[in-house]
């Protein structure tokens, strides 16, 4: 809702959104204070770039312009006309060089010097291209995950539109699906997501191995010795927002179009000493899907503190957030409440 305060002041909201802000501002003095504060920022722009009268007869000329568009288009490209008129015979011809004549000569002798030069060129090419190849593979897997997260984002929005609270899937606090990785189950089982493959980063899997997500029924009915095997695939599922704690319960994250509220991210494990360990695209950064449907690759070295906030709640714990503005993205088997 806070996202809409600026829009309210600029009259950029739809009617129902503006009404919501007014109702909220009436009830909550803090919102009134925020509005007043924002207003002082916006007032700086008042009358700053006022409208001027258009040149006389602009509309009339624009209408008259319709009658002669073809002539204008021709007149626009005089350079091309000149090029076309240049006779082919007059085009400059490259002078012959030694290298050129060597390539075209009839001699096929391949000397030791030629071999050394060729070998040197091969070594240089390898030095240049192998790191580039590695980094391009890394980039490809990053982009693949970006695409996956877009698909997951659409499925999550689809899911949220189907319920009154417009909430994303909730992570149970107990039962067989009481871990973050289970968020994909309703998306797949209810047909919001076309394939479970979108829930997992290919870079974390063995080459050519297909990702399989067990169903909730399979997990619930599995014999104790089967559970580890069945659950192994959940470790490959992206991190998911654990929701918000409220009176000992956990409330599912809601769809509100917030640009700064993360919902899903590449896999990031939290180590023993609280160190973040991204999996899949090296340690450089993570793809994050935000509430507004945007996916962004955030480099860990640029804004480490911001990224850290996404994996710990305001109390420094890896469990559901303590308020609505405290998102926490849990991996695989992270529980929404760590004490359970």
């Amino acid at each position, binding site marked *: 809702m806070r996202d809409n305060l600026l829009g309210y002041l600029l009259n950029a909201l739809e009617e129902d959104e503006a009404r919501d802000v007014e109702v909220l501002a009436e009830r909550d003095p803090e919102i009134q204070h925020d509005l007043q504060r924002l207003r002082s*920022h916006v007032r700086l722009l008042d009358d700053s770039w006022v409208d001027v009268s258009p040149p006389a007869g602009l509309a*009339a000329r*624009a209408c008259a312009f319709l009658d002669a568009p073809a002539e204008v288009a021709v007149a626009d490209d005089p350079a091309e006309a000149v090029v076309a008129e240049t006779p082919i015979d007059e085009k400059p011809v490259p002078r012959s060089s030694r290298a050129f004549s060597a390539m075209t000569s009839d001699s096929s002798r391949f000397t030791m010097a030629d071999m050394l030069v060729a070998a040197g060129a091969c070594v240089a090419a390898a030095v240049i291209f192998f790191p580039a190849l590695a980094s391009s593979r890394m980039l490809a897997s990053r982009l693949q995950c970006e695409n996956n997260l877009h698909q997951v984002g659409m499925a999550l929005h689809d899911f949220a539109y189907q319920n009154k609270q417009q909430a994303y899937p909730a992570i149970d606090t107990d039962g067989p699906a009481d871990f973050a990785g289970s968020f994909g189950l309703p998306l797949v089982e209810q047909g919001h997501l076309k394939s479970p493959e979108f829930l997992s980063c290919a870079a974390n899997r063995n080459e050519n191995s297909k990702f399989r997500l067990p169903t909730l029924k399979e997990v619930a009915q599995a014999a104790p010795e089967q559970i580890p095997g069945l659950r192994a695939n959940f470790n490959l599922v992206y991190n998911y927002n654990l929701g918000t704690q409220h009176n000992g319960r956990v409330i599912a994250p809601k769809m509100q179009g917030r640009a*700064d509220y993360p919902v899903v991210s590449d896999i990031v494990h939290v180590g023993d000493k609280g160190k973040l360990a991204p999996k899949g695209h090296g340690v450089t950064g993570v793809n994050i899907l935000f509430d507004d449907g945007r996916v962004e690759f955030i480099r860990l070295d640029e804004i480490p503190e911001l990224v850290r906030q996404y994996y710990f709640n305001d109390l420094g714990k890896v469990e559901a957030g303590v308020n609505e503005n405290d998102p926490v993205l849990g991996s695989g088997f992270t529980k929404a409440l760590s004490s359970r």
Partner: protein
Amino acid sequence: MTATLEMTQSASEFTYLEPMSDEDLILGYRETGDRELFECLVNRYERELFNYLRRYLNDAEMAEDAFQATFLQVHLKCESFEEGRRFRPWLYTIATNQAIDAQRRSKRHRMISLDRSGRDDADEIGGLVDLLVSGEPAPAAQIDDAERQTYMQEAVKQLPESLQEVVILVYYQGLKYREAADVLGIPVGTVKSRLHSAVVKLTEAWNRTYANDEKNA
């Protein structure tokens, strides 16, 4: 000149078309080819669209050319205008594309940015800075209105292009978030975050200049 005079005279005769919505006018023009309907639309948007293009291009002459090119495109593309769609964002989309083309032709890209860290635009948007969270103080000094207006106009011109176009569309042209998102082909959330970012940058720039002045005084 004769044509101009004729057009100016006929502009005053459109009063009977005024109750018609923009959408009715463009659809009517598409159906009948009645030039009066088209001229009514051009007149209706003459001031608004010219000022939009002038702000976008920062050049009145280029704005005039882009204005004419925009309505030429409206004429050429009116077949693709979908019934049920709103005309204003559609027109702004065409105008924005024409302005971008004009900029490209003149190669007069703006190089200065208020962002001094040297990061690119994508990073800029990514780090959503909420005014309330960032705690950016309220504008510091009470400066003469005329001075403030000139300063802010220059400050807006120096914003990164992605932020500037959102400020122009939403603040100066009065488009709704949804319409601006439609024009720019980006999600509504991105429009919001860019606008927040722009207001923070403008306030920072203002405070940098005038808070220092106050300290020195």
